[in-house]
């Protein structure tokens, strides 16, 4: 009936971000959820239209490879925010910082003395066989000893409301530009709710990033030249590359703009060669330097890795980080936290069966129908089997693949992760859709900092668990509330 708020029903058995078990807005979020839940479908649809128009005008797009026309699409956005209370956020933040510290120590160790392997806490062959482990870099110390300058940790929330780490992204995590752009949209279309919710700003991320890029420079910070290296306008994340270059004030360069001479990196400019000290590269390790990785690669800068080895250029993130976000190594992160920090993990993670271990493999092959199987070195939701939703043929394919190359597979129980009220574009009703959260952590010589909020991705299809943008996912603004000021 027009003029009446639609009735929102969370999914049974799951945790809903805005609505509690009693069907009312969560107490810790005050009256903010009601500012959205009590709106009429017409109002919600109107605001949603404004939001989409705004995103189109801002040119917030991504290109989809599978699309024949190579057209640019708007990253689907729902204007109803995901809201996190200040206390939920505070404990999450502590957990993320602890995890990052351990992962950073792990990388330093693996590319150094390999003590944790000697101690047997992480199986040696598991590390040495990781696709993104780079033996060429053992013994190389990056400028200022930081390797994970930018991390994106994917989290989900279980039915009890606990955050669980789903995966670590320590190579070139993407998506932060959507966090900043989504906030601009919120400011435009729901200013009143944003004011009342007292949300922590996200605007200063690029300034922090720019400072870290200067701080890790092998040169004195005053004449440092930092650049952002993009594969070019045809890359699916080009929008983000341009966004970050613009908002940090650094030059956006393509591989052909750079060359290496005498182990130093230079940029070709109208005023001759200009020395480059820091490269925030949005190119995979394997395409960085054809001398080292793929001689067939047309991308890449010949001699870059040697310049890096000589300490003449800082790479953000450091090459070789992929060994730490390998999905099989993930199973050992709690062990790393205990080994390096002598602490219990503050953030839980999803129980994981590592198919390289015979007993785990046997269990996985017997329970394919219940488990989510993931390839250890793929991203973007590719190489996955969603057991409960799969067909017998799909399970058979995965069985053969696991048996052929067990190191490449892990399996996890399917977690019924949390939902958030989302506007259904067709019916204009509020529906429960599953969401995840990717917070971003910046690390420089002076420490780590977590951007308050992060990217909330939505599985837009009813009942779906797939939030990846390449597979029809969308996003929401993430509102972290300010802590009450104690006077």
């Amino acid at each position, binding site marked *: 009936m027009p003029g009446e708020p639609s009735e929102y029903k969370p999914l049974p058995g799951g945790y809903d971000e805005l609505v509690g078990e009693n069907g009312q807005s969560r107490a810790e979020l005050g009256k903010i959820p009601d500012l959205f839940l009590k709106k009429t479908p017409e109002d919600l649809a109107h605001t949603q239209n*404004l939001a989409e128009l*705004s995103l189109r005008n801002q040119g917030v797009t991504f290109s989809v490879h599978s699309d024949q026309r190579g057209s640019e699409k708007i990253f689907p956005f729902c204007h109803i925010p995901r809201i996190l209370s200040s206390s939920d956020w505070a404990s999450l933040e502590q957990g993320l910082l602890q995890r990052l510290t351990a992962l950073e120590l792990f990388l330093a160790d693996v590319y150094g003395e390999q003590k944790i392997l000697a101690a047997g806490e992480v199986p040696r062959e598991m590390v040495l066989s990781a696709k993104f482990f780079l033996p060429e870099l053992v013994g190389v110390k990056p400028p200022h000893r930081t390797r994970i300058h930018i991390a994106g940790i994917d989290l989900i929330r279980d039915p009890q409301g606990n955050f669980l780490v789903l995966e670590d992204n320590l190579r070139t995590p993407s998506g932060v530009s959507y966090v900043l752009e989504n906030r601009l949209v919120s*400011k*435009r279309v729901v*200013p009143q709710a*944003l*004011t009342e919710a*007292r*949300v*922590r*700003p996200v*605007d*200063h991320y*690029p*300034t*922090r*990033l*720019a*400072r870290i*890029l*200067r701080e890790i420079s092998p040169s004195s910070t005053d004449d*440092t*030249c*930092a650049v952002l290296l993009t594969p070019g306008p045809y890359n699916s994340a080009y929008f983000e590359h341009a966004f970050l270059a*613009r*908002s*940090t*004030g*650094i030059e956006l360069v393509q591989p052909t703009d750079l060359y290496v001479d005498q182990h130093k990196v230079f940029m070709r400019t109208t005023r001759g060669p200009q020395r480059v000290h820091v490269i925030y590269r949005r190119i995979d390790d394997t395409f960085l330097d054809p001398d080292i990785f793929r001689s067939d690669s047309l991308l890449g800068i010949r001699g870059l890795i040697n310049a890096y080895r000589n300490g003449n250029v800082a790479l953000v993130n450091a090459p070789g980080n992929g060994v730490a976000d390998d999905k099989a190594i993930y199973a050992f992160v709690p062990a790393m936290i205990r080994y390096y920090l002598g602490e219990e993990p503050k953030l839980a993670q999803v129980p994981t069966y590592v198919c390289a271990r015979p007993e785990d493999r046997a269990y996985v092959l017997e329970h394919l129908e219940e488990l989510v199987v993931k390839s250890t070195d793929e991203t973007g939701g590719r190489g996955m089997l969603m057991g409960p939703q799969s067909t017998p043929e799909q399970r058979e394919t995965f069985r053969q693949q696991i048996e052929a190359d067990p190191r490449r597979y892990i399996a996890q129980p399917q977690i019924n992760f949390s939902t958030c009220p989302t506007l259904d574009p067709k019916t204009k009703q509020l529906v429960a859709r599953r969401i995840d959260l990717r917070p971003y952590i910046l690390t420089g010589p002076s420490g780590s900092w977590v951007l308050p909020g992060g990217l909330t991705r939505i599985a837009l299809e009813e009942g779906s668990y797939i939030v990846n943008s390449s597979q029809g996912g969308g996003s929401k603004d993430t509102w972290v509330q*300010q802590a009450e*000021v104690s006077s």
Partner: protein
Amino acid sequence: MISRVADHCFWLGRYLERAESIARTLNVTRDLALDGGFEPHQCWRPLLIVCGEEPIFLERFGASKIADGEIVQEFMSWDQQNPDSLLRIVSAARENAKAIRDLLPMEVWEICNELFLWLTNGARTTFLEERYEFYRTVRHQVQLMLGLMRGAMIHDTPLDFIWLGLMIERLGQTARMLDMHHYIFRSLTPAQTHQEVETAIWLSLMRACSAHESFLRQFQGRVSAQTAATFLFLESRFPRSVRYCTHVSYERLCDIRSPSERDLPGHRALECLHELDEWIAQVHPSQMKTPEIHDLLTHVVNEATTASNLIQREFLGG
């Protein structure tokens, strides 16, 4: 050129620039206020001070309403008794444009007229429902007029007067805006003095001066009180800096009447701008810090007012 016509040109330039600047500043201040971390009055009061409207506002609405962004925006957009409301400024720009319709490209007059008609009929809904779009439309229509005049008029005395008015207006706006943000910076409470809040202030200032990308590129993302002030005060290549606006004002006036022709009207105005231009060239980046910068900016604002008054008196019969 007839003095009266020159007067209309000068004020058309001033009002168009003021409309754009106020629309931009209202939008940017609104963004700043939406980010937690500031008290509403810390954002809106300085805006009223920059526009010189604080006394009128206080008298009309009382001190408590200065924290109410909606009332401030209403006052600065629609108030008939506020000479600096967008409605009154655009109306004044249109009156000046109408008086020199014969001189302006047809399109410029049409856009000016359309903008005014939209404000009196239709824009109210946009203001209430899509605030960002409202400010954006005002800015874009003004920018369109400025671009058309530069691209379609003979670069001669009439356009020189329009541009002189625009640059003098912009000079005052940039100087006051910079001063206002140093004022916010100084008024932060101890709980607020951290990197996040400071960055927000200076980036907000840069957006208010259309300087966001240029500034970040110039300093590779170094955001501080000092880099912000250095850029907006001293950067001779940025078309909204104090230095640029002063210099171009002087150049326009030189084209209107050459410094060598001492007996023509406008000699004292020219000298005033020349002195200010030379004075700015002496200012050193090390002086770009709070609170010293306040005195420098006050000098700039006063001299810009003097120059404008002299132009008015010597050329325009005012």
